């Protein structure tokens, strides 16, 4: 009886902790929407999202270049980070002797523990001058941000993809090999297909991280207000716009930054919803088979 009471007490405490997470999410959402929506309405949602004039002192707020910037940088990060991560995951699960895995995997996971400002700093000191020298342009660019973000999302995407590949029943692989498929055919035609939805979910989580990253991007992206015309052009993302100007902004300018936050929030919600749907579908499929 006493044990039951204790259990109940603990479960109540845990429930309270869990609720506080939900409450803080709700509060953050309510707050940024309350601050940001009115100015979006005032400027006009279409104009706010599609105009390229960001002159806060003159009351002109258009974040189109930054939306493009965020999407460009994220797409670049997915091309670089996604490819690398998938390659890592395939190597770790299919081709690597266990001993090497036991060294390689912790190393990749350790990348997740490096603070973003360090990535940014390395980007500024090494990557940016190198891009400027060998490829031209100012160095601070979509490309620099993409490379830095690509490395930053590598650990997350890799470890979730590894889990997805490991979750494929052994019999699939054994069956394919028994039918005479080569290692690569097995990997390519069987394993990747079977783990596809898990890998897609990993990519989308990585994408969410890339969209939201701020510090490293401010340092290497250059933060111009112009639409990027090539991957060597500097660019400003939604997050860096907020972080750059938040400290100073007052009045409408401040609310416009919250509205930038609303836009970001919407983009991230869309990505997360896609991620959830995809992984649910995977769960259902697994249930059927």
């Amino acid at each position: 009886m006493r044990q039951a009471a204790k259990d109940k007490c603990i479960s109540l405490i845990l429930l309270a902790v869990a609720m506080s997470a939900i409450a803080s999410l709700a509060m953050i959402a309510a707050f940024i929407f309350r601050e940001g929506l009115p100015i979006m309405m005032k400027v006009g949602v279409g104009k706010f999202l599609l105009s390229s004039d960001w002159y806060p002192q003159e009351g002109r707020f258009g974040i189109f270049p930054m939306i493009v910037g965020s999407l460009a940088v994220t797409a670049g990060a997915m091309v670089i980070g996604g490819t690398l991560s998938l390659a890592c995951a395939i190597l770790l699960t299919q081709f690597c002797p266990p001993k090497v895995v036991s060294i390689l995997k912790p190393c990749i996971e350790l990348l997740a523990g490096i603070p973003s400002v360090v990535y940014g700093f390395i980007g500024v000191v090494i990557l940016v001058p190198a891009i400027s020298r060998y490829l031209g342009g100012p160095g601070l660019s979509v490309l620099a941000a993409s490379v830095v973000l690509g490395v930053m999302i590598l650990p997350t995407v890799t470890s979730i993809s590894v889990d997805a590949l490991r979750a494929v029943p052994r019999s699939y692989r054994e069956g394919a090999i028994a039918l005479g498929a080569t290692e690569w055919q097995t990997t390519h035609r069987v394993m990747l297909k079977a783990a596809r939805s898990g890998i897609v979910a990993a990519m989308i989580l990585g994408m969410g991280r890339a969209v939201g990253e701020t510090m490293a991007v401010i340092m290497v992206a250059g933060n111009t207000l112009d639409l990027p015309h090539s991957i060597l052009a500097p660019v400003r993302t939604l997050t860096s716009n907020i972080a750059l100007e938040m400290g100073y902004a007052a009045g409408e300018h401040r609310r416009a930054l919250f509205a930038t936050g609303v836009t970001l929030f919407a983009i991230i919600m869309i990505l997360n919803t896609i991620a959830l749907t995809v992984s649910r579908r995977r769960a259902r499929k697994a249930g059927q088979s």
Partner: protein
Amino acid sequence: MKWIIAAFLALAAAVVFVSIGAGWGGHRGKPVVCIGSTSVEPFAEMLAEEFQHKDPNLSIDVQGGGSTAGIQAILEGIADIGMCSRSLNPPEAAKLRGIPIALDGLAVVVNKSNPVTALTRDQVRAIFSGEVARWSEVGGADEPIDLITREEGSGTREAFMKLVMEAKVAPPAAAASQPSTASAPAAAPPPVVRISRKAMTQESNGAVKELVKHNRRAIGYMSLGLVHDELKIITVDGVHPTAEAVRSKQYPLMRPFLFVVRGTVRPAAQDFIDYVLTPEGQHVLEKEGLVGVR
């Protein structure tokens, strides 16, 4: 299981005690809080350090954030002293008091390998507005110019806007293509020459310096006191910005560093302000490349 509960209780107790402690501490030896311009910040830190040597009982907490953030902090009562690297604008001046602590030149800087050494203010404006986009147009190499500017709200940016971009009224034709919005109705159309959209934005003097140091096509502007000798300082309108040229007001681009306060000042904060204005405090600033006000 028991220890989990115990840990929870301990954590809760700790949180409560810490918050009560902070509340109490707040009323006694409360540190003097200075918030504001990242240009003034390093100098204020030096002054605070010197001052604490003399009066170890008083702690001074210096934070950056930017001039406008400093003014905001003063208005909200978060800070004792706001640090500002531009003149107060009229609505601010109505509510606050700005105490000049030093004069600072605004240095236009380029990479050391850049052959350009002198520009006129009109040329600087043309470069930053994007009208002049290649170094060859102002006597340099045939390369594009990489503009580096500060973020919206920075005191250094605002000083640069006032001293360079808005210094002379541009022909109205240039401004007419960008009609002003409803925010400034009947007033005369502001002949604002904007900083080009292509300009790369950095959020501190340090970041500007770092970029210009590594990019031979770059041009930026920053606090003269913080340049040291890693960058080339451009001679503007024929005057090279030395401390002497700033003091005698020959150098056209200069601005005050202000301590901003509101109403009555706490004695501890007043002591610090007084110290900064003594010959000793001023000497600390002059040693670091600023120009004193006394």
